[in-house]
């Protein structure tokens, strides 16, 4: 410096060559760095006087700025001094020619401290914002997860997502087995050694462990599991945040608690419902029944649907299908109560109307069953007469053996225990013919998110028409499959399909055949009632007469004290058409030595009249004749 005045200026002043060599320096700066003038001038570069960070900064930024822009202003740097680093603010300007650079250096102790505090505050704020974001994300994912597996999945996804891990493994505590690996991301599920459960139990926070971070997942009372995260190894990755992982671990432990409780309750409800629906139909040849129960897609959520069938009195089959409001254990147990109540209050001669009134009184006592809906029907097995009523429930569907399916819209009233229950609920009546079917079901079958109930009922009717020729079991299977196809997240569904077979024709006649003509007339009338055409009726009656005569003569030996049994019924063939089946049985013992010419002739006559003949000899002789109920129209 040329004058003493500049030498003692309250700031450092330097002149540099283009490459940064110090050409001149005033006393102030030399005092700051505690160096002698002769040790600096022409020997050191300005960056040599800076801390390492400043040196790199000079090389990568400041020297470039000087060359391109000819100056830089107010840059915070630190001088390397024997007393430590001295914060300074530096401004530099290159001369016009670019051959030299004038530099002014101001000490910045106070300002630097202030700035550092600002920066620190800013870093804290940024970190806390990042933490909050990550925690919020993880919490939202955990609280949205239903079931243990879903919680584990949410946790794994959060770990490699917002929590910033490269890979992660989760172990869940299994009773009696300790920690069991149950999932991972970015590494094989059994690739990380299982942490000793005893050690994890003692952990209260996330810890670094063998280059990874181990997070305990504590539930309220016991360890639920552990999480082990591998940090990212890329250079710019932030380290895993123990604080945030501890917080997420706490949340996850409680989420696992919740999920476990939930699954327990769901599985109890599920078992309860299954056992309630496991019902044996009454044994009676006059009807057949097929049922289906399809749990909702979300298996954890049991609904309150049921079906049931029982004898309400001698020869009266009671059918109920209903739906209790709500889901889960509560709904399942309310369903059980209400279903039992239906059985308990049903009695001969009561009928649907009065049965529903009794149930209305019942649900006044059982809050959880209130507003349940129900379709109830009683089928007179001898006549095919049906009395039915629907309390807030979708209408039964009649599938006649001949003709189009139709919905039964009579006998409708409000759900059980509804606010305005009519003093007398109405009921409907319908007469089943032999082979007719009646379908009861819960609303899950027809109601879908993507279509209203009216459309659903139309679709059901069409689908039922397509099941006309199927056996009962297959018809139920096809119907539920067709109706529920492609439906996601659907409700529970209960379906009950009953078929009335009608009353069979049954007679005993004495072996002297004195009542044969009256039996023939009665069989003819029975066949006419079952819808057979004249020709079929004539043929079947003739074939049956021949079989009865044969049985009386050869089996019973014509003795009046012996009897011949005849039975006729209608059965469904595999192709869906119906046939009449006549069975004739004698109790006489077939004797091989007995001449069988007469009997052989009789058989040939019979064979000509029916579609199929089967002769069985054991304790007596049984002949089974089959013939299509109606001649095909050709």
């Amino acid at each position, binding site marked *: 410096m040329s004058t003493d005045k500049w030498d003692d200026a309250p700031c450092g002043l330097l002149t540099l060559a283009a*490459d940064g060599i110090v050409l001149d320096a005033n006393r102030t700066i030399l005092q700051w760095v505690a160096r002698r003038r002769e040790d600096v001038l022409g020997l050191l570069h300005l960056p040599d006087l800076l801390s390492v960070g400043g040196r790199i900064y000079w090389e*990568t*930024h400041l*020297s470039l700025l000087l060359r391109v822009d000819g100056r830089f202003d107010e840059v915070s740097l*630190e001088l390397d001094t024997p007393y430590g680093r001295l914060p300074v603010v530096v401004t530099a300007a290159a001369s016009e020619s670019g051959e030299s650079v004038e530099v002014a250096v101001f000490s910045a102790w106070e300002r630097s401290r202030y700035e550092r505090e600002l920066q620190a505050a800013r870093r804290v704020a940024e970190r806390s914002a990042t933490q909050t974001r990550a925690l919020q994300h993880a919490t939202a994912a955990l609280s949205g997860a239903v079931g243990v597996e879903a919680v584990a999945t949410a946790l794994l996804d959060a770990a490699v997502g917002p929590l910033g891990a490269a890979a992660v493994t989760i172990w869940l505590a299994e009773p009696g087995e300790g920690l069991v690996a149950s999932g991972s991301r970015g590494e094989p599920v059994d690739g990380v050694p299982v942490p000793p459960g005893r050690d994890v139990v003692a952990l209260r926070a996330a810890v670094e462990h063998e280059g990874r971070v181990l997070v305990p997942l504590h539930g309220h009372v016991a360890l639920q599991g552990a999480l082990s995260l591998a940090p990212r190894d*890329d*250079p710019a990755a932030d380290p895993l945040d123990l604080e945030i992982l501890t917080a997420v671990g706490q949340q996850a432990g409680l989420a696992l608690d919740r999920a476990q409780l939930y699954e327990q309750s769901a599985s109890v409800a599920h078992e309860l419902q299954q056992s309630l629906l496991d019902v044996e139909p009454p044994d009676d040849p006059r009807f057949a029944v097929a049922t289906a129960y399809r749990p909702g897609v979300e298996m954890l959520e049991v609904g309150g649907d049921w079906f049931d069938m029982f004898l309400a009195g001698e020869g009266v089959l009671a059918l109920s299908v209903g739906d209790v409001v709500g889901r889960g254990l509560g709904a399942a147990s309310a369903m059980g109560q209400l279903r039992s109540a239906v059985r308990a209050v049903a009695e001969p001669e009561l009928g649907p109307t009065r049965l529903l009134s009794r149930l209305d009184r019942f649900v006044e006592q059982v809050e959880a069953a209130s507003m349940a809906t129900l379709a109830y029907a009683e089928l007179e097995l001898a006549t095919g007469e049906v009395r039915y009523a629907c309390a807030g429930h979708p209408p039964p569907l009649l599938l006649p053996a001949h003709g189009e399916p139709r919905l039964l819209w009579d006998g409708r009233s409000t759900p059980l225990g509804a606010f305005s229950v009519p003093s007398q609920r109405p009921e409907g009546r319908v007469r089943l013919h032999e082979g007719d079917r009646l379908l009861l079901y819960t609303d899950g079958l027809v109601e879908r998110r993507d279509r209203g109930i009216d459309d659903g009922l139309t679709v059901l009717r069409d689908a039922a028409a397509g099941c006309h020729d199927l056996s009962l079991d297959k018809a139920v299977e096809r119907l539920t499959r067709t109706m529920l196809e492609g439906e996601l997240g659907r409700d529970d569904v209960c379906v009950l399909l009953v078929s009335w077979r009608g009353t069979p024709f049954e007679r005993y006649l004495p072996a002297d055949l004195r009542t044969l003509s009256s039996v023939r007339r009665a069989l003819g009338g029975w066949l006419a009632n079952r819808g057979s055409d004249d020709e079929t009726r004539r043929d079947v009656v003739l074939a049956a007469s021949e079989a009865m005569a044969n049985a009386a003569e050869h089996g019973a030996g014509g003795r009046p004290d012996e009897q011949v049994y005849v039975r006729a019924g209608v059965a469904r063939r595999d192709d869906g058409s119906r046939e009449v089946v006549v069975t004739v049985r004698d109790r006489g013992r077939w004797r091989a030595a007995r001449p069988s010419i007469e009997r052989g002739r009789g058989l040939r006559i019979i064979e000509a009249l029916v579609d199929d003949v089967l002769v069985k000899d054991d304790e007596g002789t049984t002949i089974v004749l089959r013939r299509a109920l109606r001649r095909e129209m050709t």
Partner: protein
Amino acid sequence: MTLAGRADGPPMIFAHGFGCDQTMWRHVVPAFADSHRIVLFDHVGAGGSDLAAFDPDRYRRLQGYAGDVIEILDTLALLPAVFVGHSVSAIIGALAAIERPELFDRLVLVVPSPRYIDDVGYRGGFTRAEIDELLETMDGNYLGWSAHIAPVIMGVPDRPELAQELTSSFCRTDPAIARHFARTTFLSDNRGDLDKVRTPSLVLQCRKDVIAPMDVGEFVHAHLSGSELVVLDATGHCPNLSAPDQVVAAMRRYLSGR
């Protein structure tokens, strides 16, 4: 991205290093504009690049930046290019050439360093603590690099043109991205990748460079098969600004000697 030079010339792409932008090639580019198709670009976050394109995950590794170089060359569909990269971009170019060798004719690696931090048997020049110190220095200054500096410059009445230039350009890097880039640059270790490079290369080393010292240049040369090492009589880490004539001369000699 800037396209310049001879339209039908062989392509030459320039990649700037950490802390700058494409302006740093201003003294080198003119020497090749008559003979080459020149491609200049700013790394994402630097200079005139689209800050919104910055994805912290993608740029966590230098491979992310190498992907950008490949993308540029793919988009332009040029003949195999001469890649000229400064400092960290020399390594970025090497990574790109490993992945897609057919895009590259030659590599010119200006003051490259595959690892800045000392290791057992390797002297990168810095300790981890010193790199942290750099990050601290950057934190202390980043406000100055954007809006704040322009009014100060405008207050210099005798050089009004400066204000214009500074507000528009040089070394203006988004502070958050610059910090991220600094960590990726100084904490990466790409020593193991050098052996995989099959493209012929020229290594330019400065005689005195604290960022990439002599040892590092020799290390790079030793591990790059088919490389030539030229030591420039220059000080500092940016010979393309401090000694552009030497850089141009070395490049010319190298490229004509095929």
